[in-house]
């Protein structure tokens, strides 16, 4: 029973990692109607920026806030400089540019900060709750929920949030009602980068900071967002927790799978979910008009 409880809690803790990044995935999807494959590497890069600031003696929370601001600006800049000129290129070409960005950030981080793992400080106290779950993991759980709340309010209650959704869903009509679609895209990129930065700074204390930190996590983040429903921030968070728990339980209680095929099983489950709920568990189903 203790094993079961612990696996659930660890699943939740891992789930928080996935959920955090999944929120960034959802945010960018709301803005550009697509995935950003460089999302993980951007978050990793932001985390390194924060690490460098802390290393030179800037207090944690100052560095934390500065990193969010820098990441936001960086996200906006990427959209304006790199994506604006190829706005009309096919979507597949955009994906190639994402891949290019991924390679650039990964390689640069390795060259600047090398590959030795770095300790990234946690804002929460050390230690664990009864040896069951780390205090940082609990803290991260709440940070994820706060982020979720903020995003929910942003889209639901602010004009700019609604404008952004409109710009993504139907750029032409949005333009007609006076929304500046170009800047909405940039805003979406900025926000996604900022959320990614928070995710990175929350994840790094658990997995340690290195240039390949996000390699596996991004895959899980995508999976979480898709299982939960790519249009729904709440769904993405739920999806993250679900993926974390399912993965752990399958690895623990199905002997033929064990840890060896844990990832495979998680992926199979995800695809299965999609087969029955093609828009994810909490996603809106899209009605198509011909």
């Amino acid at each position: 029973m203790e094993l079961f409880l612990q696996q659930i809690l660890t699943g939740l803790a891992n789930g928080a990692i996935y959920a955090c990044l999944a929120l960034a995935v959802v945010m960018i999807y709301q803005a550009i109607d697509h995935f950003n494959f460089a999302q993980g590497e951007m978050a990793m890069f932001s985390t390194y920026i924060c690490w460098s600031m802390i290393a030179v003696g800037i207090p944690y929370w100052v560095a934390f806030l500065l990193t969010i601001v820098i990441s936001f600006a960086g996200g906006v800049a990427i959209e304006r400089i790199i994506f604006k000129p190829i706005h009309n290129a096919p979507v597949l070409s955009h994906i190639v540019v994402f891949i290019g960005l991924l390679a650039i950030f990964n390689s640069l981080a390795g060259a600047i900060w090398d590959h030795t793992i770095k300790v990234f400080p946690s804002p929460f106290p050390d230690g664990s709750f009864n040896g069951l779950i780390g205090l940082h993991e609990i803290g991260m759980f709440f940070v994820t929920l706060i982020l979720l709340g903020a995003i929910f309010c942003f889209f639901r209650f602010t004009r700019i949030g609604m404008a952004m959704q409109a710009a993504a869903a139907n750029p032409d009509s949005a333009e007609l009602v006076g929304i500046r679609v170009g800047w909405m895209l940039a805003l979406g990129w900025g926000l996604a980068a900022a959320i990614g930065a928070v995710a990175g700074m929350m994840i790094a204390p658990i997995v340690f900071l290195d240039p390949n930190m996000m390699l596996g996590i991004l895959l899980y983040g995508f999976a979480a967002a898709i299982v939960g429903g790519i249009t729904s921030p709440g769904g993405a968070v739920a999806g993250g927790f679900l993926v974390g728990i399912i993965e752990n339980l399958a690895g623990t209680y199905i002997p033929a799978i064990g840890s060896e095929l844990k990832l495979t099983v998680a992926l199979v489950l995800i695809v299965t979910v999609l087969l029955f709920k093609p828009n994810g568990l909490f996603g809106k189903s899209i009605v198509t008009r011909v």
Partner: protein
Amino acid sequence: MNTGRKLTLALAGIAAIGLVAGTAAAEKKYGPGVTDTNIKLGNTNPYSGPAAAYGTIGKAITAYFKKVNKEGGVNGRMIEFISLDDGYSPPKTKEQTRKLVEQEDVLLIFQGLGTPTNSAIHNYMNKKKVPQLFVATGATKWGDPENYPWTMGWQPSYQTEGKLFGAYILENVKDPKIGILFQNDDYGKDYVTGLKAKLGDKAATMIVAEESYEVTDPTINSQIIKLKSSGANVFFNVSTPKFAAQAIKKVRELNWDPLFLNNSVSNTVGSVYKPAGLENSKGIISLQYYMDPTSPETQETEAYKKWKAWMTEYNPDGDLLSSFNVFGYLAAQTMVQVLEQAGDNLTRENIMKEAANLNMEMDMLLPGVTIETSPTDFYPIEKMMPVQFDGERLVSIGEVVSAD
């Protein structure tokens, strides 16, 4: 490509002149890539992609040869070290190696990194009769002079180390119940194989749990929980630094207190024990064959001072915390030793002969650890020393041992 070919031609010309001159002085014999002033060595390393951390070794070797060249080279010849990126992808390794052998005309391939990557060129090198020297992988298959006379390993094989850990458990633990965490690839599996080989019939009863992880796994927490619940009193950790640090943290967080055995790959103070917490890492037992540059007792030695002087002058971008920089430093010295021994007879055959005729000690190797080879022994390093981390430094807890 064109300039490369011109260069090759020019070099071949010089080599021809060298050969003519050589007959006068007698005994000068050159294989491909060698002239009176130059020796060309090839290498593949992952400088990009998920395994890029290992690229550090290639950079360290390059930096060491820079030092050798600045100090006059080997028997008056400069080492030209051509290190290409293979991104840890076997097909790419094959492509790059063929480029090195067939276009760059290197004398040999030295310290190619990775098991699958070296496996991809294993047959090719032996068919072509090009030395594949001191490969940077701990698989067991590199020491097979009968079937693969052109390939030689360098570091202690993972299986050897697994056996040494097995021996340690048998000697020191009463009624052991072993839980293993291992990386799901050749490296992890070889350790487990070695351990099981040493435990023999008892392996089945002694090993109570085996858990693997993938390099893409974000954390290994779930595996550690399973290992703890198996009731193991010995935890054998076969993981790379990042996961080792995670494992140490998690084991302590769970208030689990097994005998903690850590593989040498992650036995480093600066990049594992410190990130995981010095207090958490107290009591961990491991094996070592070269000095950990991050450990305080190393830093007091002459050897370290020499190593550091080399790092600051020739490898200034390199990380003083990374033991890969010691690894490359030592491997490169072994190569230089072979070239020195070969003298003016720099044919591929003679290189292999000299590589199989080593008996040397080196600066950053632990005292008592030697590099020894013979025509039937293609495993240069086979000895290791058990050490324990006392919360600050690595303390020797026994003599240098070898698996046999």
